[in-house]
């Protein structure tokens, strides 16, 4: 399948940004210091799920945000997202540039960068990591790349078959793809892909000390890292139960805990010395499967608008995330390319009732099922209670997570009758990934449930276009088309609330969670603890 999407996007801005940043980066190389020598103390992170060992290998990046947490400790990339830089922070590469025709990109490695085993990071390792990459979007890179040239012992050039305008975004955003994360070729080949996942060696600030698969990852500051590393020992423990994580924080067993559940946010915020880090995360929105069918009550735009008017976004945000999320206008997060800003929708129960009357439902109607994204069932319950106020009577349908995602794959036939889905998702990179995965006909999660033909037509046009201005216009048109017609009803942006214990040195929570594109704590080397 041809994927013209990557051929053109913000041509000029992108190039300009790349060139300028490349220049700035080379001018301001962080001072090299013997990092590990000064490192002291220990930091314990209580992780909110199990550990999958595959998350320790960037070569098999699964395209989700999860591996970020481990990559940023053990591995390093040529360029990556850090702080306010979305994808172009120079890490192992001292600087980089994309050719004016976008048909090649050249990276120059920092002097003296090393892997944890002492081997230098060479252009050959970069080439291997790129060519051997098998994770998310691997086929895109494969298809676009003609060859990888080693120019000299610090310089490497990626040569493309055609203009590859999204290269830097795809290459440098940690939760999109992983070919830019460099693994040592010799070691990788020696231990094999599976062996590597047990004992990964990277060029990141922390080297692996002990790995209990699924349970515990212990790391130690790597003194060969090019930036100073502050904390000597970094320990990540998997603690699936939220209440237990909070107890760990309270007792000082953990310094950072991820994912504090809504009910506990207020209490945790009041613990002495504890700082909450509410990271804006996935977007929750309402979907009406099969609304194109004239027999479906949601076929009528007025009914869909009534739903939007009935939803109490602020109450939802307050109850579910202690007000730390954000009621939204657009269902697409604003931290991706071409996402448009949209004002928060109003709540107006009277007007909603009025619209329902006009649409021919003076007494409301019954919805067969309201299915929330697992395990956010209480959000579904709140939605049902809110809709009931205007006469839309729904029943909650809960699904175990694996079943839910399989049902989504099944398309409309899995959601017959009158149904509402309260879905939630977070995708980085570009607005088009959202549209393609969650709206388009045949999209990975949308299938045939909610697509709209003429918007899909415009999207095809968008993908074919190589004119950045036209692409931007189409992107905005499509997003407006969805929002004006209430094809989806945005609810709010979820807050992934984390908590930082008193031992961690910080002025504000953003010092530990600079966010933008990753919901986890990073950069690990910058985090400090009190003695």
């Amino acid at each position: 399948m041809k994927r013209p999407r990557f051929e053109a996007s913000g041509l000029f801005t992108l190039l300009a940004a790349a060139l300028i940043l490349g220049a700035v980066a080379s001018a301001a190389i962080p001072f090299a210091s013997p990092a590990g020598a000064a490192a002291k103390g220990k930091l314990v992170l209580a992780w909110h799920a199990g550990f999958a060992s595959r998350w320790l290998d960037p070569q098999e990046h699964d395209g989700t945000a999860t591996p970020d947490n481990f990559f940023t400790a053990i591995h390093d990339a040529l360029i990556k997202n850090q702080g306010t830089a979305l994808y172009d922070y120079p890490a192992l590469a001292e600087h980089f540039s994309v050719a004016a025709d976008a048909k090649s990109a050249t990276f120059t490695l920092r002097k003296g960068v090393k892997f944890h085993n002492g081997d230098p990071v060479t252009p050959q390792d970069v080439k291997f990591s790129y060519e051997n990459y098998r994770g998310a979007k691997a086929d895109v890179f494969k298809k676009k790349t003609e060859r990888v040239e080693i120019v000299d012992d610090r310089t490497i050039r990626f040569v493309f078959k055609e203009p590859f305008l999204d290269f830097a975004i795809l290459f440098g955003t940690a939760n999109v793809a992983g070919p830019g994360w460099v693994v040592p070729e010799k070691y990788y080949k020696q231990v094999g892909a599976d062996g590597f996942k047990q004992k990964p060696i990277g060029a990141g600030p922390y080297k692996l000390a002990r790995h209990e698969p699924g349970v515990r990852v212990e790391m130690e500051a790597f003194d060969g890292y090019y930036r100073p590393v502050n904390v000597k020992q970094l320990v990540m423990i998997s603690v699936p139960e939220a209440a237990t994580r909070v107890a760990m924080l309270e007792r000082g067993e953990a310094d950072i805990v991820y994912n504090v559940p809504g009910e506990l946010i207020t209490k945790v915020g009041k613990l002495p010395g504890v700082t909450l880090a509410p990271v804006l995360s996935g977007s929750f929105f309402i979907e009406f499967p099969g609304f194109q069918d004239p027999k479906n009550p949601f076929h009528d735009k007025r009914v869909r608008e009534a739903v939007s008017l009935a939803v109490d976004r602020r109450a939802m945000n307050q109850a579910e995330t202690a007000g730390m999320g954000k009621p939204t206008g657009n269902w697409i997060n604003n931290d991706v390319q071409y996402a448009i800003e949209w004002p928060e929708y109003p709540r107006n129960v009277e007007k909603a009732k009025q619209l329902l009357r006009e649409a021919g439902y003076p007494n409301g109607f019954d919805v067969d099922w309201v299915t929330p994204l697992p395990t956010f069932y209480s959000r579904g319950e709140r939605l049902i209670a809110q809709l009931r106020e205007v006469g839309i009577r729904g029943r909650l349908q809960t699904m175990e997570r694996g079943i839910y995602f399989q049902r989504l794959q099944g398309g409309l036939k899995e959601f017959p009758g009158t149904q509402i889905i309260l879905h939630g998702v977070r995708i980085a990179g570009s607005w088009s990934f959202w549209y393609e995965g969650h709206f388009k006909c045949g999209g990975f999660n949308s299938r045939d449930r909610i697509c709209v033909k003429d918007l899909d037509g415009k999207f095809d046009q968008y993908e074919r276009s190589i004119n950045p201005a036209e692409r931007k216009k189409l992107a905005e048109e499509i997003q407006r088309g969805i929002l004006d017609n209430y094809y989806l009803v945005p609810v709010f942006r979820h807050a992934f609330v984390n908590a930082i214990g008193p031992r961690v040195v910080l002025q504000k929570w953003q010092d530990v969670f600079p966010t933008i594109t990753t919901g986890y704590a990073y950069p690990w080397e910058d985090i400090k603890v009190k003695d």
Partner: protein
Amino acid sequence: MATIPANTRLAARRTASGWLGALVKAAREAPLMAVIILGGLVLVALLADLIAPYDPTLPVKGAEMFVPPFWMEGGSVATPLGTDFQGRDILSRLIYGARVSLVVGLMGTLVAGGIGTAMGILSGYVGGWVDQIIMRVTDAWLALPAIVFAIFLAAMVGPSMWNIIVILGAVYWTRYARVIRGEVLTLRERDFVKLAEIAGASKLRVIKKHILPNVMNTATVLASLTVGVVIIAEASLSFLGVGVPPPQPAWGLMLSEARPTLMAGQWWLTVFPGACILLIVLATQLFGDWLRVRLDPQTRNL
């Protein structure tokens, strides 16, 4: 395991109606506490529609979330045991929860007992390859985790209270099958069964007239002890996210959904349903223990 002295076995040989009569008589001597608790809960469950002040699935109009019980500061008599994270009345949820818990506990036990007793009789009385197959399946079943079943059924037909009952029945039938089979094996060798067979009674008739009435005591005792286990298992399934689906007011679900609030000091969300579960399970266990001594002193290791 235990060998059965002939005299007690004969005493236990009663017709079905005699067995019922004995049960009624026994009920009068049952442990007072357990009977009061169970009787009270059954009453509450039956009258839930009349005595519950609010709809258990919807927020109380005008009430805040996390309102504490009435005797605490900020509490209100309108919601005497407080409200939960959705602003629902906890008392109403507990009252309706009695219904869910009793239905799940009793029906789950009935399903398990039904399958298990049938399998046990079939296995023990028919014998041969039927016995072989049933016993091998029973053994294999023991190693299958309940949660795998739960997810399997949820995937096949979606979660509901009735599916939970099926799941629990499917998990707990094996203990019946083994014990009942053991009983039937001894019964099969006994004179009254042999005589009936010689007299030309069909297998079905022998099972109905002679085998079934004689294993009912054991099945009843097992059932009384299983009810509590099933109720606890229902709560565990909720913890794993595959239990009775919200917003149904099941005690196990209430306990599991609100568990983080325990750490936040909103104890009333979990302590009340927890106490209810504790009471009902304790009561059924005590009752079952008593029943066991009363009906079937020889059965051990249940």
